[in-house]
């Protein structure tokens, strides 16, 4: 296996990778939950507080202007990263969850009437279920769920049937956090557009692994988090196409989003800032820009290629272990392997792997309906990042074999 970049050298950029867990070298395969941070991102936060910390969009003094410029530059970086038309289409949020809540509250809720429908899919993270469920409950509207096939792909015929009812919204994940399935978003958006259905795409599990072009996808909203793509926690992105933000009312109100305030009337600013009430996560945005620079310099295609190699290698070895059953076998997969070991509980497998220094995620991965669909209490999930190596996969396989021997 030839990696498109020098992984050994790259690992040097991640200070945390040298820690030990239970006296063993850390093998970190929980990248779907959060990724580790390269020095460039860590340093960007330290630099911000060491050199230009000030509140933004308010002061006339130099530091404030410098901080404001860095924050707005971060917005530009995000726009370029996902190929948005303008930085004014980018709202900084706390993360994917807040981005979805914002759209549910400010875009869907005012449009939703009794007997309307909203469509999500059976492989959504709870974050892309609950905000829509709340909207539907409030309006007495119907939440419809696209079926998931046995191989972990979406039943597109069923999606079609649900879209024919002209729902007020389609909210769909780009990549399943539990199964790794990459959904054919571009084709799905095209069909949704035929019925005039607005589409929100949850890109939390896609942006760290592949090139994303929101104009090409043609979706109305695209949301993701910084911390799953080597950036800081507490910063996320809402992309809203074209003029959509101007059609929406603020999700939260407060300082920084107004033109004029009187006790009987307030005039809001236009564009992205209208949705960033209060002092935003300035260092988070700057850290996210550093993370974008980091992955862009590596190259999204190179990252995809590296992770695909690891994915295939691990899958082949796992397949040869007696009792391992994959949950989700879509051919388009973004570097996630979910499995159960017959006769064992994922929690036990995860505990024994942890004792050997191997960090995986076990449980329902915030997708309880999907676990019910596959009739499992949870799975063991291995998710890859740029710094993972073939040798680490070997450690995982040996550790898993030991776990199975102990548990069975």
């Amino acid at each position, binding site marked *: 296996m030839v990696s498109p970049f020098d992984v050994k050298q790259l690992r040097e950029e991640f200070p945390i990778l040298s820690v030990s867990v*239970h006296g063993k070298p850390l093998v970190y395969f929980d990248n779907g939950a959060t990724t580790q941070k390269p020095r460039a991102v860590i340093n960007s936060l330290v630099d911000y507080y060491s050199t230009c910390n000030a509140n933004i969009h308010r002061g006339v003094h130099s530091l404030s202007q410098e901080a404001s410029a860095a924050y707005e530059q971060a917005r530009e970086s995000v726009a370029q990263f996902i190929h948005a038309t303008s930085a004014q289409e980018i709202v900084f949020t706390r993360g994917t969850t807040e981005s979805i809540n914002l759209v549910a509250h400010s875009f869907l809720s005012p449009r939703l009437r009794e007997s309307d429908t909203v469509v999500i899919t059976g492989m959504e993270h709870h974050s892309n279920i609950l905000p829509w469920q709340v909207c539907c409950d409030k309006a007495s509207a119907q939440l419809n769920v696209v079926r998931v096939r046995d191989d972990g792909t979406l039943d597109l015929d069923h999606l079609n049937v649900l879209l024919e009812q002209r729902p007020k919204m389609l909210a769909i994940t780009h990549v399943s956090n539990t199964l790794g399935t990459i959904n054919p978003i571009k084709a799905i958006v095209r069909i949704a557009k035929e019925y005039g259905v607005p589409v929100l795409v949850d890109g939390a599990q896609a942006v760290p692994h592949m090139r994303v072009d929101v104009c090409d996808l043609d979706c109305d909203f695209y949301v993701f988090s910084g911390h799953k793509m080597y950036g800081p926690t507490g910063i996320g992105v809402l992309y809203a196409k074209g003029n959509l933000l101007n059609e929406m009312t603020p999700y939260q109100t407060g300082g920084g989003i107004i033109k004029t305030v009187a006790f009987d009337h307030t005039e809001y600013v236009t564009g992205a800032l209208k949705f960033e009430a209060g002092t935003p996560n300035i260092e988070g945005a700057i850290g996210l820009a550093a993370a974008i620079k980091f992955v862009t310099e590596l190259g999204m295609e190179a990252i995809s290629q590296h992770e695909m190699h690891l994915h295939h290698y691990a899958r082949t070895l796992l397949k040869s272990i007696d009792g391992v059953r994959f949950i989700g076998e879509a051919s388009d997969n973004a570097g996630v392997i979910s499995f159960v070991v017959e006769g*064992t*509980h*994922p*929690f*036990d497998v*995860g*505990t*024994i792997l942890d*004792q050997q220094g191997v960090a995986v995620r*076990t*449980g*329902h991965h915030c997708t309880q309906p999907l676990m019910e669909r596959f009739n499992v*209490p*949870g799975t063991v999930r291995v998710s890859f990042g740029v710094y993972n190596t073939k040798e680490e996969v070997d450690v995982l396989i040996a550790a898993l074999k*030991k776990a199975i021997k*102990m*548990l069975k």
Partner: protein
Amino acid sequence: MNTIAASEKEIVEEFEMFDQWDDKYQYIIDMGKTLKSLDESLKTDERIIKGCQSKVWLHSYIKEGKIYFEADSDAIITKGIVALMIRVLSGHDADEIVKAPLHFIEQIGLKSHLSPTRANGLAAMVKQMKLDALALGATIKS
């Protein structure tokens, strides 16, 4: 029957024999396997303690003035630790159970399993054992 403190001491001594993590975990796993499973009819919603990842069922009852526990889990390591708890707490006076410090869990290096953030239901189970002891103890006194 041992006192709670004596059972705790006994367990700590047993665990001192293990130099390696895998021997220790194998012992817990084996205890989980040998703990009698709770009768299916007792695995009701009222007896379930839901952790985020594994579930525990706890059945508490009075026999001859003492509080007894039976329990089960869908995860074997959780069940092994459940077995330790039963060994220490079951068959004692309510007051003793409520006051039991349960330091042995820390001494045998399993404290993290009882952390509320561990999401295996164990921390909630220990709390429930003490609450049940308190409630059942009150019925004995009355």
